[in-house]
């Protein structure tokens, strides 16, 4: 039977890759919590989430307290940023941040004063949270600045805010952590399993009203290369079930899944756990699912039950160039250089810093880049031995990329079109379904940086689209303006004509001379006799109206002045 399965796997290999995880490098040491008050300086970017930048509430020089919200809370627009410790705002300026574009971004530079004084007006703890309704919970999640901590940093409150008529049957909690080197979720599950489960229960509470039959299932997917995490989560789950009695309202299950990159991709995890696929361009909610990361679940629990806004997270410091690779609970804003020093520092002075795992990570060009909500891993890598530069050969159409692609795309044809800048064809080949996992690049024997081409093509298409939208808007605006001007012209002309007509009409009361437009209807009527009683009545009415108008114009300045 096993042989048969092996044969089947050989004939029809599953998509994705089996990679060397390098996980044990950073899991052998305890998790250390780093105090924000001990940092020399914290850089807090205003944008640590997907969406628009948060608006500042504090000014330079102001003293802020731990947990104090530094930006305005604008639900649905931005996500607030909180001060991880008490101190002074030293500056508000552009600083290097971790972003592939390499641009700097506005950061609040916070100088901790070492007192770590908590904000008395911070979020109050809500210990009896099981009684709260979903709107209150969502509000709290938003106020606490919680975003998806798996890397996408999408505002958690928005993700949990499902339209009223959309049924939700499953909550997926993502503990797969498939990328090599990263172990922060693994360590979180080992050490904070109860908090994760409590957070998951809170999410179930928020979503309960969407379950068609009042019952939700929560599936916690963990790659089977993390037996300790699975065991810890299962133990915590057992304890939870015992505490809640025989029939918990919703079912939670810990599901080990095969280790295969990118099993932790939202779409791949959903297919692995439920057999269903998220429709292209759609969201998991379209098929009745909501997917959140384990770290997000824990953050939600702490925000609700302890009133603690999102101010820190687990970060893995690993790689072959760091003395003591381990996981840390790091306050946001800490420069990565300082974090690496907490892990014993670099083994060699010219090691390079990377953020993220080896498949989707990016190189950091500054030690000053702060740890933000999206930071899951800092890799310190020894400089590669001097070797021939990576030569890219032409595509030999070997099809390895297509075999590896977890989305079943045709990377070589996408590459072909992206390379030739035939963006429409690339889009027709579903370029936007690419999750940029890097599997294709990893296997390509010609060493073509395929993903870079896709990222570039996508950005190109997006900017073209934006340009098109802007042009469309401008055109609409222009047309509208033209219409408005045209209407104004027409109205003016009509008014003029009416006025003319009125002018023509009034003289006949004194002179009975038809003017050159004598055919005009009114003017052509025989002049009314002065002694006509009807005429006298009209005259009187006109005078009354004029008097009223005069009175009004006299009043007006007074009114507006008062």
């Amino acid at each position: 039977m096993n042989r048969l399965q092996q044969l089947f796997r050989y004939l029809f290999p599953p998509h994705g890759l089996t990679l060397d995880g390098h996980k044990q490098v950073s899991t052998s040491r305890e998790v250390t919590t780093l105090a924000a008050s001990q940092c020399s300086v914290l850089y807090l970017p205003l944008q640590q989430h997907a969406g628009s930048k948060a608006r500042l509430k504090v000014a330079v020089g102001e003293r802020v307290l731990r947990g104090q919200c530094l930006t305005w809370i604008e639900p649905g627009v931005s996500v607030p940023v909180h001060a991880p410790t008490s101190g002074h705002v030293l500056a508000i300026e552009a600083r290097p941040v971790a972003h592939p574009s390499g641009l700097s971004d506005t950061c609040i530079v916070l100088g901790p004063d070492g007192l770590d004084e908590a904000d008395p007006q911070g979020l109050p703890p809500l210990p009896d949270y099981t009684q709260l309704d979903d709107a209150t919970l969502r509000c709290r999640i938003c106020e606490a600045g919680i975003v998806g901590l798996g890397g996408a940093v999408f505002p958690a409150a928005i993700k949990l805010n499902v339209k009223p008529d959309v049924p939700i049957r499953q909550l997926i909690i993502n503990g797969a952590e498939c990328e090599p080197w990263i172990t922060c979720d693994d360590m979180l599950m080992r050490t904070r399993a109860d908090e994760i489960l409590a957070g998951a229960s809170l999410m179930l509470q928020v979503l309960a009203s969407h379950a068609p039959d009042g019952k939700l299932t929560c599936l916690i997917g963990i790659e089977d290369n993390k037996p300790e995490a699975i065991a810890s989560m299962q133990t915590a789950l057992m304890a939870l079930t015992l505490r809640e009695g025989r029939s918990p309202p919703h079912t939670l299950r810990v599901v080990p899944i095969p280790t295969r990159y990118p099993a932790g991709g939202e779409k791949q995890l959903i297919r692995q756990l439920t057999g269903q696929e998220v429709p292209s361009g759609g969201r998991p909610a379209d098929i009745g699912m909501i997917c959140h990361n384990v770290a997000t679940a824990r953050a939600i629990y702490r925000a609700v039950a302890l009133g603690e806004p999102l101010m820190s997270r687990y970060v893995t410091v690993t790689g072959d160039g760091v003395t003591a690779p381990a996981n840390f609970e790091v306050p946001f804003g800490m420069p990565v250089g300082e974090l690496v020093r907490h892990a014993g520092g670099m083994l060699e002075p010219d090691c390079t810093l990377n953020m993220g795992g080896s498949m989707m990570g990016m190189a950091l060009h500054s030690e000053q880049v702060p740890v933000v909500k999206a930071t899951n891993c800092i890799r310190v890598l020894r400089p590669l031995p001097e070797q021939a530069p990576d030569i890219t050969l032409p595509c030999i159409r070997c099809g390895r990329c297509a075999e590896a692609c977890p989305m079943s795309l045709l990377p070589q044809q996408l590459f072909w079109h992206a390379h030739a800048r035939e963006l429409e064809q690339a889009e027709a080949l579903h370029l936007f379904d690419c999750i940029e996992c890097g599997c294709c690049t990893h296997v390509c024997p010609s060493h073509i940086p395929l993903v870079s081409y896709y990222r570039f093509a996508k950005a190109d298409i997006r900017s073209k689209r934006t340009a098109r939208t802007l042009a469309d808007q401008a055109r609409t605006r222009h047309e509208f303006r033209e219409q408005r001007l045209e209407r104004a012209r027409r109205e003016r002309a009509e008014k003029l004509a009416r006025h003319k007509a009125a002018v023509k009409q009034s003289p006949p009361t004194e002179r009975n001379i038809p003017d050159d437009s004598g055919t005009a209807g009114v003017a052509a009527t025989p002049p009314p006799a002065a002694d006509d009683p009807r005429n006298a009545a009209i005259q009187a009415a006109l005078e009354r109206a004029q008097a009223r108008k005069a009175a009004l114009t006299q009043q007006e300045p007074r009114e507006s002045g008062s």
Partner: protein
Amino acid sequence: MTQTTPPRTLPDVATLMRQVLYALLPGTALLLYLYGFGLLSNLILACLCAWGLEALMLHLRQRPLPPFLSDYSVIVTGWLLAVSLPACSPWWLILISMVFAVVIGKHLYGGLGQNPFNPAMLGYAAVLISFPLEMTRWPDPARTGFDAAGLDALLAGVFGIGSLHWDSLSGATPLDQVRMALHGGKSLVDSGMPLFSWPRTLGWNLLNLAWLGGGLWLLWQRVISWHIPVALLGSLTLFSGLFWLLDPGHYASPLFHLLQGATMLGAFFIATDPVTASTTPLGKILYAGGIGAFVYIIRTWGGYPDAMAFAVLIMNMAVPLLDHYTQPRVYGHRHRWLP
């Protein structure tokens, strides 16, 4: 800050091509044993021509020499031609076929990865059409070993000098004999074909088994995927089996077809050339199935002794179409054909 590209620990093009060369070794060794100097000269001449022409073309196209010359792809092309052409092929025959393969088949289309037709088979087909006589004369293995007689044969065959008369050395291949018999309306037994004679027939069988061995190693190393060899051999077996069952006296058995001519070489080394084959799984199966069918048709009713080159070239033409219509279903999309 730049996005890092994922690490690569997997084989590159040069490694893949080297592995193909390793897999060609058992068959080549057997050929060397059978034909001695005759095959050695083929190999040396073909590889020299291949390398030289590639360098020349790269120079003319102003491409950098090192990455392209060291990717071994042109050596594979030369090697495949060397073992496909009759042993002791004249030097000019090899040169002409290599010109067709490398210059016209590869570089005029834009070099590595751009060519729609299998270069080796283009070179083979070109000389097969132009010089049918030279291409159908395989020398008698007994006369072309690594000895003085072989040296004489070498001089006669390759350079046309020496005392030996080339025609006296060569004869038709078993595959050719079967086709002749069929065309002449004779049955296989009547045609006097020695079905089990060493080294004429058994030599060919053994050679095919050697290619098969190398091919299986390639499968095991995952240099090639199973789709093309399985579909090619499957469809060849199907068609030959069908006709053989209908009239075993006239049509050769599937086993004969599988183990004669260039069947195994084609199934594992030629049709699997990634550049010119279909890239989707279903496309590969259809592509190789088509080759198997054409091989049988041309072998049985065509005018050429072996059919692999033509079958591959014909199916090369169908590749863009196959690729287009066999795209796999993308995650989250509905199937193209199924509801």
